[in-house]
């Protein structure tokens, strides 16, 4: 499997197949074949833009919800997670070590909307014993991309 290819795509999914091939020293056909295989195998799950939603005028809030879950007979963490991740409001779901079990990131238009979703949809799931909602106030870095400021190249060309 081509880890270098994955790293390049993780850094910039829009890198052309021709450039990927050049950088990896393989043919374009080979690069395309490998990408198709990675997609087929489910190693590559999707390609998305990293967007600074807060810069839009339209409202956008997100929250990290800590869920404590008591698995019941025949209903483990995975089943609860499977149920939660079907909601379009849910951006990500992680099983956690430590003091709580599921970390759910929820997005919505307003604080009320997110709070309502937690109260009505998440808190009412039978295995969920408690929720703690943390609203995100500001995003500084998202998926390796800095949303704050720009990196200036401070290198001079003083000599060679």
């Amino acid at each position: 499997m081509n880890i270098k290819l994955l790293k390049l795509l993780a850094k910039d999914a829009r890198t052309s197949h021709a450039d990927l091939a050049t950088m990896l020293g393989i043919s374009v056909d080979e690069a395309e074949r490998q990408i198709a295989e990675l997609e087929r195998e489910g190693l590559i799950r999707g390609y998305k833009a990293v967007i600074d939603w807060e810069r839009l005028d339209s409202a956008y809030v997100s929250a990290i919800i800590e869920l404590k879950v008591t698995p019941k007979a025949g209903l483990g963490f995975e089943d609860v997670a499977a149920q939660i991740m079907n909601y379009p409001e849910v951006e990500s779901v992680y099983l956690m070590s430590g003091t709580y079990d599921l970390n759910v990131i929820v997005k919505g238009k307003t604080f009320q909307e997110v709070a309502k979703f937690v109260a009505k949809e998440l808190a009412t799931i039978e295995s969920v014993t408690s929720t703690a909602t943390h609203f995100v106030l500001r995003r500084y870095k998202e998926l390796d991309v800095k949303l704050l400021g720009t990196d200036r190249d401070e290198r001079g060309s003083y000599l060679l």
Partner: protein
Amino acid sequence: MIDYKKILSPTVQSIQPSGIRKYFDIAESMEDVISLGVGEPDFPTPWEIRKAGILSLESGKTRYTSNWGMEQLRLEISRYMSRKYALSYDAKSDILVTVGGSEAIDACIRAITAPGDEIIIPQPSYVCYEPIVSLAGGSPVIIETKAEHDFKLTPEQLRAAITPRTKALILPYPCNPTGAVMDRSDLEAIAAVLRDTDILVVSDEIYAELTFGASSHVSIASIDGMKERTVVINGFSKTFSMTGWRLGFACGPAPIIKQITKIHQYAIMCAPTTSQYAAIEALKNGDEAVKRMLEEYDMRRRLIVKGFNDLGLCCREPRGAFYAFPCITSTGLTSDEFCERLLYAERVAVVPGTAFGQGGEGFIRASYCYSTQHIKEALARIQRFLNTLKA
């Protein structure tokens, strides 16, 4: 009015300031310039190395070290030279830690040069050799390496340049700006010319770890009979992305290192202490970080070389350092014209090959110490520029 011209040394006044300064002055006055000009890594120093420097400061290690450099560092350098290049240097007598490779070159040239001595310098090469030789009272003897020889120094060229006054050969490989590398067989041929002479080799191997492809760097000092007539210059700037730390070293025969150390002792005292602590960490545990950076450089290298060739600017594969050196004669412009017009027309800063000696005419140097997006953007602009030339 005081006449400064009378005060200043004629030798110093006769030295030309670096030829590329002009472009960067122009570039700095312009908005939205995209540069392929710099000769230093874009990666910050790997964190563990920085941490070692910080830790030394926190522990109050803020005093002078031995003139030679810390013993522990010299020991690590000795191990490094043995591990990487199969060279055995005694940490006590054969190694001097300097303020960057530059100081090592300067002190070494000064230590060997008597007035009128000839020092052979292959060009195109790094800009400092000629002025350093002149300042030391020596006479630079330039050999122009050729594109058709992949900018390698040939034994024929060397033999033709040697006179009874020849004191030393500066051997700058892997080469800035050409990216040329001397393979073992190339070095064997050079060694055959020098082996029975009293000519010293000053081998500037600052880019030794930045070589690409299957074969790793070979030091001329590791060729039979050459260690006793070679001073190897290396350092931390390029390999470990430590340019600002200013740390390098010279390894060579004890009688020569001893004399170089006198110059270093009186001019510098010792290399920066913080940097020495960081350097110990770099040599002990830096290999993984270097490998990661090298892989990144290699991908950029392929991208930029193919980019230039696709644009019709013939670019041979640079096997070392981090520069592409494409030929621009197909444009009908001189290197100087090309760079100036490219800068004004498309706001891309590259360096004319002539900045590295007259033999660089017809070429430009493009550094690939930049992100792939940056390189792609620069190439796209150069494409636009070439299109306007054809129109």
